[in-house]
């Protein structure tokens, strides 16, 4: 008889990032996964297909990524934490209904194991080319939350973080990983259940007759009734008022869009996380996220050994972008260096935030991660 594994596999494991992500989801209480096979995210679907029946959850392989995104939104509306995982082409297909999740304010997690694009691009090879799509990929004005892990352990930890943020702020949260993190294997420590902090969506505190679907509380987030709870939910992708009724006018639209943005913007200090290394006296700072952070750390250590005052700011939360921090660093450094596995995306945000106070230097790389030497070389040149 096959051993049924518990929901939380407390202990040490040698996992790849994709599997760690699946385990993080399950540890978060995710009991619904809808997906479509796509390299290099397929291992997440495979892991979920094996694990969901073990924990009384549902795994469904949908007909495409459009369906996958909608299915997780539906499942979340029924009160079950839900996730999908994909890569570039599938991410593009999900974008319209990622917007539906933003508009209807539905918690869910969308994982993108990035590969090279556009189009079919490089299915088996890495990239960070969807970072701007993560921010602006669906139509309309809105704010997003996107986390960027750089190890299998972080795939586990950040998936939990993503679920917590999605439940707290009522929106689909993005985990923007890449092929290297998805496929690399390392030790993943899964804590005991009591040490995993989980957040669940706010439920209405009033009777159904008094409940308004989109009446926000002080934190700009409205409590959420699930289907079947007796609250006669009414929701639509149309611009709507506090009741959830369609409201086709400028005033209602402005009010809704501003609140959808404010619930992220005004809670930035709660949402944004980052890591600083050797930053206090740094004259040159490398701003990084995701897998290049690991080359960056090596390069910064090498620079310190060579007597160069270099430091690293790693963005854990890429969106919302931590512009105040970048502006602050811009005021006290010779240069900000931004290595990315793309043609320069987040570097635009760095430039915008630096407001001309320092040099901003991109290190563009395609389809492979930067070597530490490549980053060190730029640090050294700048230090001269």
């Amino acid at each position, binding site marked *: 008889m096959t051993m049924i594994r518990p929901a939380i596999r407390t202990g040490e494991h040698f996992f790849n990032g994709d599997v760690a992500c699946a385990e993080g989801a399950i540890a978060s*209480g995710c009991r619904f996964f809808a997906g479509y096979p796509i390299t290099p995210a397929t291992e997440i679907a495979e892991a979920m297909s094996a694990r969901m029946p073990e924990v009384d959850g549902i795994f469904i392989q949908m007909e495409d990524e459009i369906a996958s995104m909608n299915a997780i939104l539906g499942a979340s509306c029924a009160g079950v934490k839900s996730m999908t995982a994909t890569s570039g082409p599938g991410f593009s297909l999900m974008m319209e209904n990622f917007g539906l999740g933003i508009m209807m304010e539905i918690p869910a997690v969308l994982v993108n194991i990035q590969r090279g694009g556009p189009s079919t691009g490089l299915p088996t090879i890495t990239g960070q080319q969807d970072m701007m799509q993560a921010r602006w990929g669906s139509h309309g004005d809105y704010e997003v939350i996107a986390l960027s892990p750089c190890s299998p352990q972080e795939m586990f930890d950040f998936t939990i973080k993503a679920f917590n943020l999605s439940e707290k702020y009522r929106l689909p949260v993005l985990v923007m990983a890449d092929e290297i993190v998805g496929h690399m294997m390392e030790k993943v420590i899964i804590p005991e259940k009591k040490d995993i902090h989980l957040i669940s969506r706010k439920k209405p505190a009033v009777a159904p007759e008094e409940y308004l679907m989109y009446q926000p509380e002080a934190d700009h987030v409205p409590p959420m009734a699930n289907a079947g709870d007796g609250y006669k939910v009414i929701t639509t992708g149309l611009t709507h008022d506090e009741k959830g009724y369609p409201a086709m006018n400028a005033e209602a639209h402005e009010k809704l869009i501003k609140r959808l943005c404010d619930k992220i913007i005004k809670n930035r200090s709660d949402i944004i996380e980052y890591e600083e290394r050797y930053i206090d006296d740094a004259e040159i700072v490398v701003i990084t996220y995701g897998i290049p952070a690991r080359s960056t750390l090596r390069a910064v250590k090498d620079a310190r050994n060579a007597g160069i005052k270099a430091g690293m700011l790693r963005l854990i939360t890429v969106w919302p972008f931590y512009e105040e921090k970048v502006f602050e660093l811009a005021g006290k450094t010779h240069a900000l260096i931004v290595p990315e596995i793309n043609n320069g995306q987040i570097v635009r945000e760095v430039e915008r935030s630096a407001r001309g106070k320092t040099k901003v230097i991109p290190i563009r790389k395609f389809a492979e991660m930067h070597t530490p030497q490549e980053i060190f070389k730029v640090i050294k040149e700048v230090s001269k």
Partner: protein
Amino acid sequence: MIHSEVHPMDSLIRKDRMPHIWCSGCGLGTNFTCYLEALKKSGIPLDKCVIVSGIGCAGRAPGYTNIDSYHTTHGRAIPFATGLKLANPELSVTIFSGDGDLFAIGGNHFIHAARRNIDINIICINNFNYGMTGGQFGSTTPLGSKTTTSPYGNYEHPFNLVYVAAASGAVYVARWTTIHVRRLASSIEEALLKKGFTFIEIISPCPTNFGRRNKLGEGLDELKYYRNHSIIKHFIDPKEADLTLNGEIIVGKFVDIDKPTFLDNQPDLSQKQDNKVTKT
């Protein structure tokens, strides 16, 4: 005028959302009432009933229904409803949407949900065109029909929806027209109580767009046409139930079978540990 009279459907609609957006002569009001009637008669606790739609004239029905209602994006009602149903099997989930939404942009979802036998109910209002955008041809528009994007007559062959549904694996397939109010309501009730993927097509007038351009007269004229040209043929092969612009309309129940649903077929892992579905 007596204003105190209570309409029998009042408890099922969101009165503060009236008047609805539907044109005079449109079949949607009648079709919607048949759905509400069936909902009431089915005896399913209303707190467990959910209505989902995509985009279009028919897609506005959930917003008028006083139960849990989800008005999603164009074509995507079925996968959204799939998530709702699988996450909470206690829910009775019905999709009320149009032919363009369910079979053109959403066609792929339809065939796959039917194939999987997801336990949801589809009510498809077929008015042969995209009414909300002003009357373009779609995947059900009869050959030769005039619409704003087929000014010389539609040169595409249409789907026979009941045939598509049956071939895709639906366990219950029926077609009625807007005039068949009693049969339609009892058919919807039957579908609501049936386990598995059910499909009901309602042939419905769109006098403002489709009817006007194809000289079908007012809404009432279309209903008269349905009355005079409908033939009830239960359990015939749905392949034989093609529709044409000026031909007969075969209606009736074509499929009523039983087979395991997606949830029935879930793997049964013995010696389960205590990891029940976590509701949040």
